[in-house]
């Protein structure tokens, strides 16, 4: 029961990753691509948590923590580059 629902929700997260990939390919300006990158990172966080549950290993969450703490640095550096702040 629980695993079926979790599998469904991980499928929905995958669909969301695919939609943001479409935005990345289309995106007219840099901001669109960067925001698509952000959404992809966050969806991957949720997917990693789901994989950690399905494998039954708490240690996989450490990887998710590295993402959660460091992922916004990439967005930050692109934004500062765009506004000539580096």
């Amino acid at each position, binding site marked *: 029961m629980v695993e079926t629902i979790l599998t469904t929700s991980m499928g929905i997260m995958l669909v969301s990753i695919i939609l943001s990939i479409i935005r990345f390919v289309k995106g007219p300006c840099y901001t669109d691509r960067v925001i698509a990158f952000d959404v992809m990172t966050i969806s991957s966080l949720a997917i990693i948590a789901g994989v950690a549950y399905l*494998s*039954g*290993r*708490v*240690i*996989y969450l450490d990887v998710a923590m590295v993402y959660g703490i460091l992922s916004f640095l990439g967005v930050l550096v692109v934004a500062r580059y765009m506004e000539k702040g580096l």
Partner: protein
Amino acid sequence: MEQIGLSHIAITTGILLILTGLWGILTQKNIIKMIIGFSLFDTGIHIVMVGVGYVEGKTAPILDEAVQLKEAARQIVDPLPQAMVLTAIVIGIGITALMLAYALRLYQKNKTLDIQKFNDLKW
């Protein structure tokens, strides 16, 4: 779906990524694009190596309450390729940074990033 293993998917992806990176290195004229191609090549090799070490249906080589100590050899994947790849990734960023520093220096000297304009060694 049953006969396709996870490692088949990983190794196919890795090989195609290697070829894409090599294509990028060979066809692009901008130095920075060539360095990006090199880093793609690097990632592809890492994926292939980890995929070769994967054993179907087994878990990570870290022993905690989810893996029994006695049964460890039947429950974990190969730790050796993972250690190698870990080393390789760290060296990879060093190489990438070094290449970027060279590219920056070349730009400061020649005022261009086009690889075909660098004809100092031609005669």
